[in-house]
């Protein structure tokens, strides 16, 4: 019984991390129509930056904030200097993000070596919290709460603010949005930075559970892809639902069929593609 509960908690935690990762991916894809293949690298970079910052004496949360901002700045540079030059050439943009992800991975290997880097759990959140007769690891609960908080904040941003309305307009019909006087190219930069920031931040708060190691980028990227294929691109709700579905499938799959965890992950994606190719919450394909 308690094994299942532990698995469920782990699933919710992974789901929360995946939501932070895939929400940005999904927004970028929805708005700019490019799968940003550096997204896994942003996640990994966030973790590495935070590990170094903490080593230099910064606290966990300030480090999380700063490394998120560093990754966002990097995302902005990539968008402005590289992707902007290739505007309209979607294929070229995909390939450039792939090339960049290899470069980032190799630089990380050089700087932080091949050994996994651990990030310690912040002091206040170590240990367990007892609810009724069950003991939950406090930090995992905290991650779930943070993810829920971000989901609410992102929903408010997208649904209640002027910026959110502009982004939604850009996702639905970039040409009409442009005609209506929205500077869609500036939205690109904002959304790309936001997505990078979310990914970097997720990498930091995922650090104490996953630790940071070479190959983490290529491990997280397909998970984000599956989330977006499941949930539908450009939809926050889709990312949220998709993340938790993937979180549960991955953890339970790994526990029950350790050799086939990836295949278990693959089945719902297959089902969604056959039954509803635009994803559970995606609009009909343009």
């Amino acid at each position, binding site marked *: 019984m308690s094994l299942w509960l532990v698995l469920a908690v782990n699933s919710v935690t992974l789901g929360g991390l995946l939501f932070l990762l895939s929400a940005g991916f999904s927004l970028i*894809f929805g708005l700019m*129509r*490019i*799968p940003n*293949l550096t997204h896994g690298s942003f996640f990994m970079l966030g973790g590495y930056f935070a590990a170094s910052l903490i080593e230099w004496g910064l606290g966990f949360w300030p480090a999380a904030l700063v490394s998120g901002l560093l990754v966002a700045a990097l995302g902005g540079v990539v968008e402005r200097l*590289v992707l902007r*030059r*290739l505007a309209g*050439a*979607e*294929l*070229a943009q*995909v*390939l*450039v993000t*792939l*090339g*960049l*992800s*290899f*470069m*980032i*991975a*190799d*630089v990380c*290997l*050089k700087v932080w070596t091949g050994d996994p880097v651990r990030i310690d759990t912040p002091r206040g959140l170590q240990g367990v919290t007892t609810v009724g007769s069950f003991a939950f690891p406090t930090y995992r609960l905290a991650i779930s709460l943070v993810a829920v908080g971000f989901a609410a904040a992102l929903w408010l941003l997208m649904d209640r603010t002027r910026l959110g309305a502009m982004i939604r307009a850009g996702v639905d019909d970039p040409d009409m949005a442009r005609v209506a006087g929205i500077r869609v190219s500036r939205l690109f930069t904002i959304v790309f930075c936001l997505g990078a920031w979310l990914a970097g931040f997720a990498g930091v708060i995922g650090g104490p559970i996953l630790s940071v190691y070479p190959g983490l980028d*290529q491990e997280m*990227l*397909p998970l984000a*892809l*599956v989330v*977006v*294929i499941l949930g539908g691109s450009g939809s926050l709700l889709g990312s949220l639902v998709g993340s938790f579905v993937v979180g549960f499938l991955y953890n339970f799959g790994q526990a029950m069929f*350790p*050799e*086939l*965890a*990836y*295949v278990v*992950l*693959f089945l719902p*994606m*297959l089902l969604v*593609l*056959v039954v509803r*190719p*635009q994803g559970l919450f995606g609009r009909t*394909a*343009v």
Partner: protein
Amino acid sequence: MRRLALAAALAVLAALPLWAGGTFYINIGSQILLYAVFALGINILVGYAGLVSLGHAGLLGIAAYTAARLLNGGHGHLVAVALALALTLAAAALFATLALRGSGSGIGFVMITLAIGQIVWGVAYRWISITNGDNGISIGARPSPLGLSLASPAHFYWATLVVFLAALGSVAILVASPFGASLRGTRDQPRRMAALGYHVWMIRFLAFLLSGLWSGVAGLLFLYYNQFVSPQAVALTASAEALLMVISGGSGTLLGPVVGAALVVVMKNVASAYIERWNFVLGAIFVAIVVFMPEGLVPGAARLWRRAILQWTPRPSVAASGERPAR
């Protein structure tokens, strides 16, 4: 003139083991040819159908792993090769059905092929009872078709050359055929093609199968060349490298992928002798080619050449920018 050049190129290629001077160079020649087969297969999709796949290393891996398992299970080479190719085709059919399902074409295709490719990698890495996990599978010996042993590098090179020429010929025939024309039609004007009564989905599906078949053949060559296969062969880096071959040489051209394969294999072998950061170089080349020479080396060099000639001959001429070379 053209035929003469072709015959000369063929003679040079066939005689490579005689002039290359050393096993090392003969093996590099074999590698170039086997990756050229792979790149030619991918180019059918990327170049002629306009569908970019990042999951083709998965198909290569399926062929290699199936054959390796069957060979180690005591089956003959013929059975292993036939079953491996059959399974690869079946997998390609499944991949194609899913990937073409996404948004029909374009970017959804990249994402889905990438996700499927990573799943194949996950299976190769994790399903240890079948794939032996990270340790990979070794096979005993290379086959001896028609009584000729392929154990020596030169013999293996010649066998690879024969397969390569078959691949090149099949793609050349495909491109010149009505099917090839309709495939390019679905790349450039899918809606118009559908309106004209072509079954766009079926054309793409068949192109995927053919591309999968040559990827499978490349997988078998890969297995016999290395006599070993591990999850590394299936990783995203492998798919990306193959895509780089196609794009660097020039996608949608017949010889582009071959030039690209030679470029990447030579770079990889030369670069790895001097620097250990091959992945960084790979990524940097990717970025540089996409930004500066998006049409690839073969058409790109042709364009620069034409421009240079235009500068020296001051007469009005048709601007050649952005057009695909007629072929």
